[in-house]
Every structure is written in structure tokens, then in C-alpha cells.
């Protein structure tokens, strides 16, 4: 995975799903990428904490099955960041396509 894309993925998933907890995020990434992208928890949680520290995410806790589950969701600031991060990702992919002369694969 390219550096910096993890944050974009997290922000986009939270925009689409409202609120999610750590394990749910890893499973969603696995599901959407059909198992091609494996998001390790060792990378996910520090990224979540970093985004939380930057004020882009907020957390709430709920007791589920007798244990505390921490849900992450976007703050208003995080909502704005999704748009700019998605734009950055789009521009980067376009540049990469131009540089490597990639053509869409025909199946």
C-alpha cells in the first residue's frame, strides 16, 4: 500500500459507513478488495489514533457483548478532509497512469 493512502481509506470508509470499530475496518477493507489488500492492525490503530489526534476523527464507546467497543466517526473537520484527500488520491492516480502509460485492462 502506498504511503498516505491508509488515512484516505479510513476517512473514506468512515464517510460511507458512518461509524466503525477497528476490527470492522480491517474486515471491510478485506471484503471490498476481495482479500487483495490486507490491512494489518499494527498499522491501522496508530493511523486511527493519529487521525483522532489531528481532530479528524472522534470516538464513542459502547458496551457490546459485555466489553467496551470503541467506534470511530468523522468530525466535521474530518468530513472536509475526505474531499481533499480523495482529490489528492485521484490526482496521484492520474499522474501515475500518465507516467507509466497504463491502459485500462480489458477483461
Amino acid at each position, binding site marked *: 500500500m502506498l504511503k498516505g493512502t491508509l488515512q484516505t481509506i479510513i476517512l473514506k470508509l468512515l464517510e460511507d459507513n458512518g461509524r466503525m*470499530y*477497528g*476490527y470492522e475496518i*480491517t*474486515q471491510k477493507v478485506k471484503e471490498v478488495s476481495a482479500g487483495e489488500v490486507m490491512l*494489518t*492492525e*499494527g498499522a491501522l*490503530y*496508530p493511523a486511527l*489514533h*493519529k487521525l*483522532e*489526534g489531528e481532530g479528524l476523527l*472522534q*470516538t*464513542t*464507546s459502547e*458496551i*457490546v*457483548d*459485555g*466489553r*467496551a*467497543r*470503541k467506534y470511530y466517526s468523522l468530525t466535521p473537520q474530518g468530513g472536509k478532509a475526505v474531499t481533499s484527500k480523495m482529490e489528492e488520491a485521484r490526482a496521484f492516480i492520474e499522474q501515475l497512469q500518465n507516467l507509466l502509460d497504463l491502459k485500462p485492462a480489458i477483461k
Partner: protein
Amino acid sequence: MKLTYQQDAAVREYLNRYIKYNEVKAEMYDHVMTALEHTPEDSVYGEAMNTVMNDIGGIKGLKAIQRSAKRTVIKAMVKQYLQSGKLVLSSFWMLPVICITGLAYFILPTGQPFMELFGIPFMGYLTGSGVRLWQKATRGYTEGSVVTAAFDTVVPFIQFLPVTILLIPKMMFFSFELPFPPVVFVSIIFLCLLHVATAIKFSSTQFDKANGLVA
């Protein structure tokens, strides 16, 4: 797979051994348990646990997660502390601040410009920010939010920051007299300790109870 009581206890014990902070412990406990519950019924506990722990990155991964959570809290608390500077004026109406300031006015000897200029506002600031941190910390733990929950090591550090920066080097390295009489200095330290101890005890208990970590 469904875990037995012993296996559940083993997971808790493993996390307790490597994770210091309640928030991280609770989050990792939920993660590990959810991951184990999603493994097939006929899985062997030891193997399933190894797979889950490998995904986390083992002990090194757990410690990295803990460090990142701590960094987040330190950042948030420092920000909060600096922001509380803006709230100093609004803090002055608080009863403890009024009492401390009033007391200081009568106790402090007159004629020392440093004291008159900085002494009383400093004590007001210390008390005001202490009260606010205490409120934030207790509220944070009760709600179970990482950002507003003050970790045991972060609160004392921040609480003592003014004392550390202003008073201790002055005592140790300069022959100047303390800006406050010793009795006031001791009172300030006592006040800090009281805030910190109350915050940690009350908030940790609330957090543990909320998360079923204690009966």
C-alpha cells in the same frame, strides 16, 4: 469460536502484561475477542490467537499501538492545557480559584513586584486549569473517549508543568527567594496532588466500571 472462561482470562492476562493503559487495553481486548469469535468453531485456540497476534504485529505491534495512543493523548492534553490559558479569565469565578486568590492576597508579603505581578495570577491559572483538567479527565473516562481521558502519566506531567518550569529550577539553580512563602508553595503542590489523585482515582474507577474491568 467461542472462548472458555480460561481462554478469556488468558487473553486478558496477555494484554495486561504488555499494555499499560486502560483505553488501549479495552480496545485491544475487544479487537482480539472479536477476531477470535470470527474464527471457525473448530479452530484451535492457540493457533487462532497466534494468527490474531501476528496481524497486530506481536508484542512490538501492541507497544506501537500503545505509543500512538499515548501520543494522541499527550497532544490533546497539551492542546487542551494551552487552550485553558485562554480560559483563565473565565476560570476566576470558580470557587477554588476565588479562595486561593483571596488567601494568597492575605498571605503573600507585599512589596515584591514578581509576586504581585505573577504570583496571584499564576496560582489562579494553576488552580483554574487544574479544575478544568479534572473535569475533562473525569468526563472523558466516564464516556470512554481516548482524547479527553487523561492517562495517569499525562495528567501529573501537565499539572506540574508550571511548577516544574517556574519554581523548581528557581529553587535549585538560583539563589533568589521563592516567589511565594514556603507555606503557599507547599499548598500549591498539595493542591496539584489533590487534583491529580482525585482525577486518577475517580476517573480510573469510572472507566473500569464502565468497561466491566472491575466488579
